[in-house]
């Protein structure tokens, strides 16, 4: 066979596979983050939605006192939910960039490179997380100005960062999967709209699970957003309580992410066909 004598020494990136993988992942993320730096307008538009929710919905509902918040002000109760929501809304439409880049021909360039398919997926996940962390900083700033009782200890803040990154990664990878399945921008926009509402309202983002009818509570319990909000509520707010515990919250998010990345890696090359 003509290739029998091929030796591994012939390849350029024949170093440690783990290091190669990390390098490829970072390269994919870097391409996207550099674009964001050239044109950061997108970040500004991402700040409008959480601002409207906190300033309008939050201010009004704080006065109603109908939502059982476990003894904290409603605005405080909903702030982690709004952070999770703005991350969700940004991440769930992330897949459209894949369709766009496919139409341009940019995706092909990545697919003919020796980078692992999972590195291509994870790189995009990281760049989506970078956007979400910018949103997080903005929500913190807004919450501070609205006198939300924020926790400032380093451990809790680190936990918030991890929860935001995990949540963003789960939903942006989910979005990549949707993009690989529907393949066109028009269909994707339709799907995105259909997904966001149930994901947001069938969760504990703006009201506790205890207020829900039994069936909706079960839907919420398979929604990763619920676990992200649960963790954020404990880690972000003074007096905020977690219903499931940090172990369950982060465990569910990590498992959901592993599942999503697994599926997305299989589907990613099909985006061009």
């Amino acid at each position, binding site marked *: 066979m003509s290739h029998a004598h091929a030796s591994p020494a012939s390849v*350029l990136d024949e170093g440690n596979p783990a290091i190669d993988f990390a390098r490829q992942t970072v*390269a994919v993320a870097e391409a996207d983050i*550099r674009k964001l730096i050239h044109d950061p307008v997108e970040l500004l538009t991402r700040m409008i939605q959480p601002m409207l929710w906190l300033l309008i919905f939050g201010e009004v509902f704080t006065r109603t006192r109908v939502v059982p918040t476990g003894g904290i002000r409603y605005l405080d109760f909903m702030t982690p939910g709004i952070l999770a929501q703005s991350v969700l809304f940004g991440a769930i439409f992330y897949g459209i960039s894949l369709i766009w880049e496919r139409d341009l021909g940019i995706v092909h360039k990545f697919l003919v490179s*020796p980078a692992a398919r999972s590195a291509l997926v994870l790189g995009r996940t990281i760049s989506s997380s970078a956007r979400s962390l910018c949103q997080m900083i903005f929500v913190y700033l807004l919450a501070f100005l609205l006198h939300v009782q924020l926790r400032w200890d380093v451990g809790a803040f680190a936990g918030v960062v991890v929860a935001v990154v995990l949540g963003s990664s789960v939903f942006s990878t989910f979005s990549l999967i949707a993009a690989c399945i529907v393949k066109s921008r028009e269909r994707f926009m339709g799907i995105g709209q259909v997904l966001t509402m149930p994901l947001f309202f069938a969760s504990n983002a703006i009201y506790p699970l205890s207020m829900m009818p039994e069936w909706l509570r079960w839907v919420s319990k398979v929604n990763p957003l619920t676990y992200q909000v649960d963790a954020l509520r404990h880690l972000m707010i003074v007096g905020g309580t977690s219903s499931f515990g940090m172990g369950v919250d982060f465990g569910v998010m990590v498992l959901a992410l592993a599942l999503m990345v697994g599926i997305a890696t299989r589907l990613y090359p099909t985006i061009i066909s």
Partner: protein
Amino acid sequence: MALVDKAGNLQEAAPDTGPTVINAVDTRAITRRFGTLVAVDHLTVTVPNGSIFGLLGPNGAGKSTLIKMLTTLLSPSEGTAYVAGFDIVREPRQVRRKIGYVSQMLSADGDLTGYENLLISAKLYGIPRSERAARIARALEFMKLMHVSDKLVKHYSGGMIRRLEIAQSMLHHPSILFLDEPTVGLDPFAKRAVWEDIRDLQREFGTTILMTTHDMLEADELCETVAFMHQGTLAVIGPPSELKAALGASATLNDAFIHYTGAAITEGGDIKDVARTRLTSQRLG
């Protein structure tokens, strides 16, 4: 050979210089179906190392499908091919390390600078940090893009974008470069510049170039061997001069194409092909 330091080049240890690999590309009854349509039909062809090989045919002849299979973007329905000695079905990652590819569409990212486009490619291909800057500088210089390297690519002219894409696909010194309609949408002047670059690449790096085109003049000027593709199969293969000579002294390559395939090169293709070509032309402006 000022532009390439052969001694410091990892490619030097590549097996494709070994005695058992004779051909850059070697297809074995490679076939691709889309539903009932057979885009590439049991095609067997070899491309010798170091040559400029042109695949000619109208839109829809199966050229792009064949290139996509050889670059591992699409898997064959039947048959296989060896690219740089590796099986595209069983060893796609090894194949990817050995090839460069410039798609018919624009693969350079308009929202990044020329330098950044090259930097990302260098990182994807695992070019060591110590060599990265020098390789990028050399590629920019080679493609005469040094002066615009910090400009966003969306402000480049069509010819500059194509040259950047070729630079990008050459950064890891592939042994085979696949160019899918490299000059589509370019004006005659930019076209000639790209031809010159392709010749230089072959001369300087010994790269095998497999390109598709439906521009007869381009094939005649550039390619040492051409293969006429029609409805998923090869009608004929040979040096342009021989194909023309077989039909008489005044025959053109276009005449040869009609003679061997029974069709004009402008025929064929569907609305998708036309739309894609137009989009590329429009973006190259």
